[in-house]
């Protein structure tokens, strides 16, 4: 017995973690797959999950709202990720080179990331309020007679919610890029200085190539996270006006809990997971090729 325990001690110590992984990892995935191929609704809770084959695939083909939410999501993701990358990169460079890695500024820039998403949604909704919000109040003081309807105008509502996401997640990009900058050794810079390279040449031929892996990993992480955005938009607009800001997460939530279509919403979640796996797969290939 002691012999058995000694020989298999590593498996025995790993067992609790494996059990937790199965219970909280695989089991929900199996349930998701079962529900995805069913027409289970809130009315059916407590009953068996029926298998309806590819009925949900047929439903998806005729679902114009999902197509529209996919378009809105794509616009949202591309917009926020690009801006966050540029801003986060610039801030990281500034803190690294100009402010000389001052820990106070590093902490200040990271604060938005620490605020819960629900709180951010509520605060920005108040700020964007047409009548009482601080943004329009300031604009009126500056002489703007008809300040924008930030969340009520379908032409600018999506941009308004993107601003909130950019405010929230740029610090994340900043942190990753800053860590990447810190990991670059000094020697290439010293060699470049000896060769008489200018700042822009140093940036183009040393900093960027050595940072490329970090940039692509950051892009991948932010893209996947942006795809899953929900909390802030739920509070800010609930997908309105019309469906101008109805991203996939909101549509899936509505399908599950407003319409009660648990099976179909599980299927939409599965489609979303597949899309995110494809995106992250592409990024991983790029990262491998840059290595």
């Amino acid at each position, binding site marked *: 017995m002691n012999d058995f325990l000694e020989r298999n001690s590593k498996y025995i110590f790993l067992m609790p973690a494996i059990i937790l992984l199965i219970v909280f990892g695989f089991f929900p995935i199996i349930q998701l797959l079962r529900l995805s191929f069913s027409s289970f609704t809130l009315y059916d809770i407590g009953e068996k999950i029926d298998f309806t084959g590819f009925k949900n695939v047929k439903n998806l083909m005729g679902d114009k709202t999902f197509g529209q939410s996919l378009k809105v999501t794509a616009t949202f993701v591309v917009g926020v990720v690009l801006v966050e990358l540029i801003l986060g990169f610039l801030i990281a460079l500034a803190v690294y080179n100009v402010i000389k890695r001052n820990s106070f500024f590093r902490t200040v820039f990271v604060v938005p990331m620490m605020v819960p998403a629900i709180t951010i949604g509520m605060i920005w909704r108040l700020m964007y309020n047409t*009548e009482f919000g601080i943004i329009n109040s300031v604009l009126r003081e500056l002489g703007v007679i008809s300040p924008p309807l930030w969340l009520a105008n*379908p032409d600018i509502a999506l941009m308004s919610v993107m601003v909130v996401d950019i405010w929230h997640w740029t610090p994340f990009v900043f942190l990753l890029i800053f860590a990447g900058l810190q990991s670059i050794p000094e020697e290439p810079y010293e060699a470049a200085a000896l060769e008489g390279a200018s700042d822009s040449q140093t940036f183009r031929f040393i900093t960027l190539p050595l940072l490329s892996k970090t940039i692509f990993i950051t892009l991948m992480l932010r893209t996947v996270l942006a795809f899953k955005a929900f909390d802030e938009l739920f509070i800010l607009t609930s997908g*309105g006006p019309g469906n101008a800001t109805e991203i996939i997460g909101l549509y899936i939530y509505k399908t599950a809990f407003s319409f009660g279509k648990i099976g179909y919403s599980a299927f939409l979640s599965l489609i979303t997971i597949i899309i995110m796996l494809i995106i992250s797969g592409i990024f991983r290939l790029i990262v491998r090729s840059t290595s």
Partner: protein
Amino acid sequence: MVLFLTIFTLQGFSVGKQEAEGVKEITIAVNDSPWLPGLKQLVPLYEEETGMRINFSIFPYKGLYEKLTTAIPLGSKEWDIIFLDDTWVSLFYDKKYLTPLEEIDPNFTVDPAIIEYANVMRWNHDKKYTTPDGTLYSLPINGNFHLFYYREDLYKEAGLDTPPETWEDVKEAAATLYDPKKPFYGYVLRGQKGNAVVFNFLPVLKSFGGDIFVDPPIDWTVRISDEKAVAALENYLSLLQWAPPGSGDVGQSDMLAMLSTGKAAQGIVVAAAVPWMDNEETSTIPYKMQYTVTPKAKNGKHAPLLGMWVMGIPQSISDERKKASLEFMKWVTSFESQKKYTEFGAVPVRSDVMFSDLADQKEFRFLKAMGESYDLVTERPRMPEWFEIEEIMGMNLNKAVVGEQSAQEALDTIAEEVVNLLEKAGYETGIAE
């Protein structure tokens, strides 16, 4: 894992122990609503009288729905009483997740002073709808419905007749009182996508003699795009000229803020929001707001919409807990309790409270309007597909409010999509000519 299992077992043990020793406490699942403070002030009186302890499990509105729809069907014993929005009742009644009250006490009858609210307490399992002869599953706990809030002082200053009866009266006042320079808005409407705009538009629709269906549950023909509905929506959209810009994003809290800070003259709002108007912490115009029945079209009818709550007893709990819960429900709907409940800032569910001496007090002047409205109330369709219908309506009405669609386009789209939805769900339906 061991700790988790230990806690789980101990909790189950304590519930079983409580039942063995007799019921000493009741737990109620409730949403975090404006009237909850009123109920919380009331229950200590019951605790004093009976020695029973009342606990509240409080959730946000959507969170409560999610909790109840996932836990109750699985036989949760966590709550003794659950509160339900009147649009949720069809699921809980039809699937028999609640205990018929006459099963707990065969001699129980509903006090005639308790308002029926379009039969919300009763479910007919054959017709799958709330009907007067249905099984009694709940009692009302919050008798919320629409009133028309208007600045009586400004009306009188401008020489306008009060109270406004018709939409023509309202529009005349809106045009007279509107001052874009201040700005002061002649009307405020709740045009935000989803439940907000649907809830705000339906009393207008019905006041024109329009409706979503011809005669539920007998005739599910969709009539939302007929000429009465178009006239109603055009009337609703015409109010935008005197309303704040960005009405397409105005929710309930925005609307209340506009009215209570003296920035808007009038609007359709629920009775439960009355305390906001007189509370000096939330209002710059205390005691200036007046209340009346929601307006009607010239040849239409007053049609305030219900937005109320009922309380029911889950099937899964023990008989002792059911009896204790029913006793509490009877107590809380008695005349004395309801009078105190109203004094604590909530909305009564009894007509005798509306006609009591409370109505003569300045703080409770809204009771007169409630007394004139309660037997005119209308309901949203009590069917499982309602949320999807509300989503369709909410999307398209919002598009009309923000100018993306005309009234006819919005209503035609709604009619088509609702018919598609109901046909897939097996209803006999079509679009009315």
